[in-house]
């Protein structure tokens, strides 16, 4: 939750700069320039931002609100963005905004800790499971992914849908690299168990 705090620092220096050099403000150029640079760098990643927000909030209207909020925040922090991967930078802010939103509106979702011992008992892998998994349709996959606790859902979305590397996910989610791998492993195990269970019942 604290990972974005340092981003406020440059806005302080920004304020000081404007106090020291009022001329720059008078020309309005850097200000105008900022908005243009912001739109150029961040607007193209609207789809990624919406997809992440939609998966984390699990509601289309809430996702829209969160995305709008995240973009306004991103503009505030834009002075601290010094080039590099603007998609990962934006996703970090979207994720942060989502968590703030979830805390405010759905505190209980974050409170329910996921008990690995209980949910993912060792199961023997078998060939019929492979065949079953190949039959999973979009609807079922959506349900399975939505059923995951949010901290597991986000690593799957970032990895499988956004195609981020472990390192990038670690940056966006503020996690150590090892945790990214173990969370992904647990998430996949649980997805698999959930899908196999449902598909077996359908047969």
């Amino acid at each position, binding site marked *: 939750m604290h990972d974005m705090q340092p981003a406020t620092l440059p806005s302080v220096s920004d304020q000081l700069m404007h106090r020291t050099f009022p001329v720059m403000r008078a020309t309005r150029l850097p200000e105008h320039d900022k908005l243009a640079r912001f739109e150029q760098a961040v*607007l193209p990643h609207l789809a990624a931002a919406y997809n992440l927000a939609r998966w984390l909030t699990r509601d289309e209207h809430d996702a829209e609100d969160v995305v709008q909020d995240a973009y306004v925040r991103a503009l505030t922090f834009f002075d601290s963005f010094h080039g590099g991967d603007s998609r990962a930078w934006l996703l970090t802010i979207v994720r942060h905004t989502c968590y703030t939103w979830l805390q405010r509106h759905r505190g209980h979702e974050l409170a329910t800790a996921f008990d690995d011992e209980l949910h993912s008992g060792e199961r023997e892998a078998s060939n019929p*499971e492979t065949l079953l998994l190949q039959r999973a349709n979009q609807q079922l996959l959506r349900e399975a992914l939505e059923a995951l606790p949010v901290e597991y859902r986000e690593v*799957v979305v970032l990895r499988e849908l956004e195609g981020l590397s472990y390192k990038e996910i670690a940056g966006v989610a503020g996690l150590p690299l090892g945790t990214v791998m*173990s969370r992904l492993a647990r998430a996949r195990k649980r997805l698999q168990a959930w899908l196999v269970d449902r598909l077996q019942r359908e047969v």
Partner: protein
Amino acid sequence: MSCQETQALLDGYVDGELDLVRSVEVERHMQDCQACAQVYKNHQALRSAITGGDLYFSPPAHLHKRVRAAARNAHHAETRTRVWPWHGLSTAASLAAVALLVWSLVPMLTGPSAHDRLTRELIAGHVRSLMANHLTDVVSSDQHTVKPWFEGKLDFSPPVIDLTEQGFPLVGARLDYLDNRPVAALVYQRQHHVINLFLWPSPHDAEKGEQTVTQQGYHLLHWANAGLSYWAVSNLNVGELQAFVQRVQQATQNTPGTSTSFRQNPRGASQSGAAREYAREPWGWRSPAG
């Protein structure tokens, strides 16, 4: 490589995040092991179902306009407040700036404790060493190769102990960066488990008893001796990791400025007197004998 290890690395393998050596090891294991090959097939089936399942949510058409308008409004509001209260509120602005600065620093102070942060850094260092192609910078089971390798790379000379006969062969060493300083990482092996032994000088806790931390399935054993801070990190079970640590402690105890080799132990002396009987050799600061 055991089934357990293979399956622990399987996600890294599927995602193409393992280094070449580990990838080959995983592949080799799966050629011989039907059970692991099956787990891998299920992994693949799940992955292709998810990636091919059309699960990406596209934003509604109006969102682009809405977000853009919100950003512009916020931008204009920001620039307006900057222009207007410039003279009258300069004091308030500087107060606000100070408050903002304090507010942004507070989380750093109340954030995770230094100990937690270090623990996380250590686990990350250990995992990274297994993941990327960077387990060792110098590959050698010979302490007399490993030890001089550190010279000129660190501002201290780490004791390098060979524990091959105790079942913990030395694999090599590398440099790492922890706790805001370069540290030595000695790499040992126990069957297929890797043990990273991190050490660096820490004058603050010259002597310290053993502490055990378990996090994310990794065990960390920490102690300090003769002004050096030691951290052993591994997914080995605690009992065996403790046995490893005891061996290291025995070899380094009471012998500041020396390194001790169990190999030179004359015909298996009794455990209690053992430490004193090992042949000693100077390893200290830039010792010519090296």
